[in-house]
């Protein structure tokens, strides 16, 4: 019900942010060492932010479902896993597109990139389990969702703990304003888009659940 009311607002806001983001990004100055390609940063970092948000929601919803058996939590978890996988894919594609110019290689198996792939794999595993697992797989999936969420802090701190080729997380909080504004603008757009997608994807799950109930009612008669 909350999703029904919020959805139009979320759609409009996210559309607006996305349409204006390129304008804001174009106005941002060029970075000295990486030049034009650094602008991928304004979509790369926010897509991972949106992914982390979704994975966090996945973990919390999974825990609630596992210990309280709230059906709506399970539906939200499924939606969050799918949305997180999509944003993760965005991050995993934009990253190498930037990296090939900035580092000279498409990919490196350093700590952060490896953990990012692992997280994405866990999400895909979750989705495969929900799709093909059959009865009883919802609880195992909930466990997997919690495992995915447990990975996020490690992934986030990976650049601090290990020496990696990836820029440090401390770059973002210390950005000068000319770079910070487009970033947070874009981040706002991605977060709102994430919430929009979550709301409409959970609606799909809700409708599916209603359909199942109706089929059962039909068979009973």
């Amino acid at each position: 019900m909350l999703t029904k009311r919020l959805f139009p607002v979320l759609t409009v806001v996210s559309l607006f942010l996305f349409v204006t983001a390129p304008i804001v990004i174009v106005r941002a100055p060029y970075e000295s060492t990486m030049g034009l390609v650094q602008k991928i940063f304004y979509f790369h970092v926010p897509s991972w932010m949106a992914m982390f948000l979704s994975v966090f929601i996945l973990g919390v919803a999974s825990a609630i479902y596992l210990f309280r058996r709230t059906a709506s939590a399970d539906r939200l978890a499924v939606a969050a896993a799918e949305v997180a996988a999509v944003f993760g894919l965005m991050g995993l594609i934009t990253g190498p597109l930037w990296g090939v110019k900035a580092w000279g290689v498409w990919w490196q198996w350093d700590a952060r990139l490896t953990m990012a792939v692992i997280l994405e794999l866990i999400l895909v595993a979750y989705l495969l389990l929900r799709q093909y697992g059959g009865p009883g797989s919802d609880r195992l999936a909930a466990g997997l969702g919690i495992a995915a969420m447990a990975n996020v802090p490690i992934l986030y701190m990976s650049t601090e703990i290990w020496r990696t080729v990836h820029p440090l997380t401390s770059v973002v909080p210390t950005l000068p304003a000319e770079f910070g504004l487009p970033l947070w603008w874009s981040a706002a757009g991605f977060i709102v888009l994430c919430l929009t997608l979550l709301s409409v994807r959970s609606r799909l799950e809700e409708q599916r659940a209603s359909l199942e109930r109706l089929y059962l009612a039909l068979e009973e008669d």
Partner: protein
Amino acid sequence: MTGFCKVAWLVLRKDLRVESRSREMLFTTLFFAVSCVLVFSVVFVRGGQAVEGAAGGILWVVIAFSGTLALGRTFERERHHDALRGLLLAPVDHPALYVGKLLGVLLLLGVVEVVVVVMVAFLFGAPFFQHVWRLLTLLSLGTIGFASVGTLFSAMLVRTGNRAVLLPVLLFPVTIPVLMMGVVGTTALLQPEPDLAMARVGIGVLFFFDVVFVTLALWTFEALMAE
């Protein structure tokens, strides 16, 4: 606490007893592991010289594959005649069932690993026995990490139709960090000048993973297995 240990021991003893009659799981897993090592040696050993630094990785890949095979069949016997439900209905601590099964898997994998380590050392000319204790620690901790997650998932997938395929799909992403640290630690030990500091790091991280995974498994086993 003694009740918990007793239940775990009973489960382990039952599995050992059943296994000792046919030895099916032991022989098939061993054979699979040996075949894996042979395939790798065909690919990675050219003209009597093994590819540099491959032995550590190959060792852990073989452990992962044979482990998956063993884990997939851990709860196979409980699948028939609703034996698993019977076990779960018994007035015992359910996590104790998990521990009993885990110990069984660890024993099986332990035997397999002894054979595999010797084979890899021989076929790849890897100096495994220079730092035996560190290697043993790495192997034990890594296997515990891998098997703890695998036993949990295997228990959960008992009632699922696609479990043979789904177990690796679920198991590998979650256990890649464990396998990776195992490889990193083992490779550090096998270098011409062994990097003992790196091996220590590997052991430390693996210990951390083990504590986390086993704790999580014990904590969630009850909730996950409830009908």
